[in-house]
């Protein structure tokens, strides 16, 4: 059994690598977490990793930090939990502050203003792609008719009536929890 200092150092290095290589946001980092936690350091086997991932998916919020925190806690206690989360997020938050700090400092330069305008359509396309991805994922499970009906109703409530999206989602979460269990078999067939 390695000493606790070694464990903490390994945790930090593992999640630092995951954070620095994880281009594309949290969900794209899952295979990287597996490579470190299962393959390299053998902190857990594949089945346990699958369980942590499945449990993480039962909760909202970013998946990468939930996995980092849980694995860190299992391996190195509360300190390990904080250590792993910090390693995975802090370096890139600092990089972000430096990058955007420079950007803001020279904002009155015409060409910097041009750059910030030029990037808006790119973000629009990225957002359109995410919208499409969520439509596809939803269509596979709920069917496109239900997806569109739910989408239109949600859009009407949020943008038509000005209801906070958190309330709309909250209501859906409650409805999902209250759904009758007898529809179990049908839903399981409909799984992607």
């Amino acid at each position: 059994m390695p000493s606790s200092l070694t464990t903490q150092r390994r945790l930090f290095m593992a999640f630092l690598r995951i954070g620095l290589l994880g281009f594309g946001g949290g969900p794209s980092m899952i295979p990287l977490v597996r490579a470190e936690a299962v393959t390299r350091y053998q902190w857990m086997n594949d089945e346990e990793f699958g369980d942590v991932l499945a449990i993480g998916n039962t909760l909202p919020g970013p998946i990468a930090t939930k996995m980092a925190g849980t694995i860190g806690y299992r391996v190195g206690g509360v300190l390990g939990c904080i250590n792993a989360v910090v390693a995975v997020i802090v370096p890139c938050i600092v990089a972000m502050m430096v990058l955007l700090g420079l950007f803001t400092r020279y904002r009155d330069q015409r060409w910097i203003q041009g750059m910030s305008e030029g990037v808006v359509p790119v973000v629009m396309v990225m957002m359109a792609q995410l919208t499409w991805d969520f439509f596809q994922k939803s269509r596979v499970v709920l069917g496109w008719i239900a997806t569109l009906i739910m989408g239109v109703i949600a859009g009407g409530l949020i943008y038509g009536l000005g209801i906070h999206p958190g309330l709309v989602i909250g209501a859906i979460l409650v409805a999902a929890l209250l759904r009758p269990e007898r529809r179990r078999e049908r839903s399981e067939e409909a799984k992607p």
Partner: protein
Amino acid sequence: MIYWDLFLAFFIPNIVGYGGGPAIIPLVENEVVGRYGWMSSQQFAETLALGNTLPSPIATKMAGYIGYDIAGIGGSLVATFATVAPSLILMLVALGTLYRYRDSIKVKSMSQWVRPVIMVLMGYLTWSFLGEGVHDAGWIHTAIIAAISVVMLWRLKLHPVWAVVVGLVYGGFLLG
């Protein structure tokens, strides 16, 4: 109380945002741009664009930077804490209970039923970025940059960083 507002602005999106980091983006925009007016839509788009060029989870990068922009290091810590801590603490405390429900139909339907709402929020955000782009850069430049991005991201499946670089260079030379 700015720290309390910051906490709420990031706590709410992360407690209802099923579907990982990207699902949280439109919810955060709703708070930061729509509700509290801390940033303009364009500043939010910039933050998102530069955030996408860096690795690590997008939700925490957005929280860490926006918190910093609004209330300094303290703000950064509060926003990041509100993003990471609630669901992580819940996960650690209720690991056993959650383990039992990890394959439950009810729990699965929670994240599945939320998707159409997230889709609408993302679609609306796409629409408002379109309006923003046309307003600032004109529809011709917006259409050209968007077309290049579509080819790079959808057809060639290049990493977003390259599309962002193209947008920055194009804007720097032709929109400056």
